[in-house]
């Protein structure tokens, strides 16, 4: 039986991709951002997922204003990087998992989520930047990816509750897949940012930190948050954080927060990142789960130990 072993969130700022592609990751501005993902990459090496389901939004690359699917599931065998106006990013072609994707489509549609099935699609920085942040820059991505593109460009995006419930349906679909696969779900985008209009540059760290707290402990509260609150508090484009709720819905009610990273700014945006595992079911590493206040410090110490091996 396939199972979801963890959920990860990550920003997908295009400038992060540009910094990688232009070899600027060691510059102080960018090092501050990339250093926050070092432990995560180590965690990912230990977790060894067989498949990633990656929730993201397309930025006028695969979908223009001609067609705007609310939820589009990538069921193809591969997804080439899109040319976003500067040539495609120099990253590997993303391999899909058509069998599991087909199974998910079959399952969630009968669960009343009328998703769009996409059999040919290019993927932009919204998908490839989180892959870089969690897997680095290998010659081939270490596992197949099922992209789920969510419309957060044309208002209104799906509600947070709808996203959360779709996560639930995806979880049910994964758990009914006969092959023994370890699946990690990515929720991408955010955190607070506004890149349009005279209010551009808005950052609300207080909102972001509360959002991360609730994502761990009280996601039902987030699922009730109206769109207005996202836009007012976290910026017009901050609304893309609803995508994180798909990831959260795919996890158990109770989760352990393994790691968290937050920094401002990356270009116009606050960068937020969290790793959540089902409670007591360790995806990566050995030994007992650290608890309470010590959790993050312990995770930090642990990953340092791992690195020093």
């Amino acid at each position, binding site marked *: 039986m396939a199972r979801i072993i963890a959920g990860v969130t990550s920003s997908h700022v295009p400038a992060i991709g540009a910094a990688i592609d232009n070899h600027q990751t060691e510059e102080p501005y960018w090092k501050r951002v990339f250093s926050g993902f070092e432990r995560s990459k180590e965690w990912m090496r230990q977790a060894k997922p067989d498949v990633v389901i990656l929730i993201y939004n397309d930025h006028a690359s695969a979908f223009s*204003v001609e067609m705007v699917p609310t939820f589009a599931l990538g069921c193809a065998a591969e997804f080439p990087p899109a040319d976003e*106006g500067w040539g495609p990013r120099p990253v590997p072609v993303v391999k899909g998992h058509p069998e599991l994707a087909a199974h998910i489509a079959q399952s969630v549609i009968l669960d009343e989520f009328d998703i769009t099935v996409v059999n040919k699609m290019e993927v932009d920085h919204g998908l490839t930047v989180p892959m870089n942040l969690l897997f680095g820059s290998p010659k081939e991505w270490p596992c197949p990816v099922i992209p789920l593109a969510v419309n957060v460009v*044309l*208002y209104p995006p799906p509600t947070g509750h709808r996203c959360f419930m779709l996560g639930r349906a995806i979880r049910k679909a994964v758990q009914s897949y006969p092959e023994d696969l370890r699946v990690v779900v990515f929720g991408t985008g955010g955190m607070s940012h506004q890149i349009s209009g005279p*209010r551009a*540059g808005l950052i*609300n760290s207080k909102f972001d930190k509360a959002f991360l707290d609730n994502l761990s402990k009280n996601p039902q509260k987030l699922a009730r948050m109206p769109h207005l609150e996202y836009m*007012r508090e976290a910026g017009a484009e901050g609304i893309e954080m609803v995508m994180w709720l798909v990831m959260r819905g795919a996890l158990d009610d109770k989760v352990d927060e393994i790691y968290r990273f937050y920094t401002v700014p990356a270009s*116009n945006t606050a960068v937020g990142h969290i790793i959540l595992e089902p409670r007591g079911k360790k995806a990566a590493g050995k030994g007992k789960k650290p608890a309470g206040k010590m959790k993050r410090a312990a995770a930090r110490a642990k990953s340092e130990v791992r690195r020093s091996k």
Partner: protein
Amino acid sequence: MAREQHDYDDIPGTFVFDQERSRQGFGINMFCMSLMKDENRKAFKANEPEYLKKFNLTPAQADAILKRDYNRMLELGGNIYFTAKLGATDGHSFRHLAAVMTGSTQDDYANMMLAGGRSVEGNRSRSGKDAKPAKKPTKKAKAKSKTKARAKPRSKRG
């Protein structure tokens, strides 16, 4: 017909790309999409007004594009992920465009971001009726941006 008012129209300095703007701005956004191709970028640069004729734009929309008035493009139905392609054609990044839209210099905008970005305090609501009013409403952000003051009456005109 006047633009139907929505709760989010109360957010200052913000043009939400909703169904109504998407309907109005189809030509702007399709024009921007066309700039994904190099031959189209060259054709546009060679004769901008002539190139724009292909996209069924209103005179106001064409004018906003020719003047690179990014806020006006948003107001008339452009979306930032699309208009950014026009910015890229001119060699500008998202951050550059953001600074332009706020009316800041590039340096001022970059420094604001490094200092933690624009505060939400005083930037939540035009009407001041939102649930979390700023304790000390500042006019700092307003003073920074002359486009912001300009954007207000325009968005009501629809």
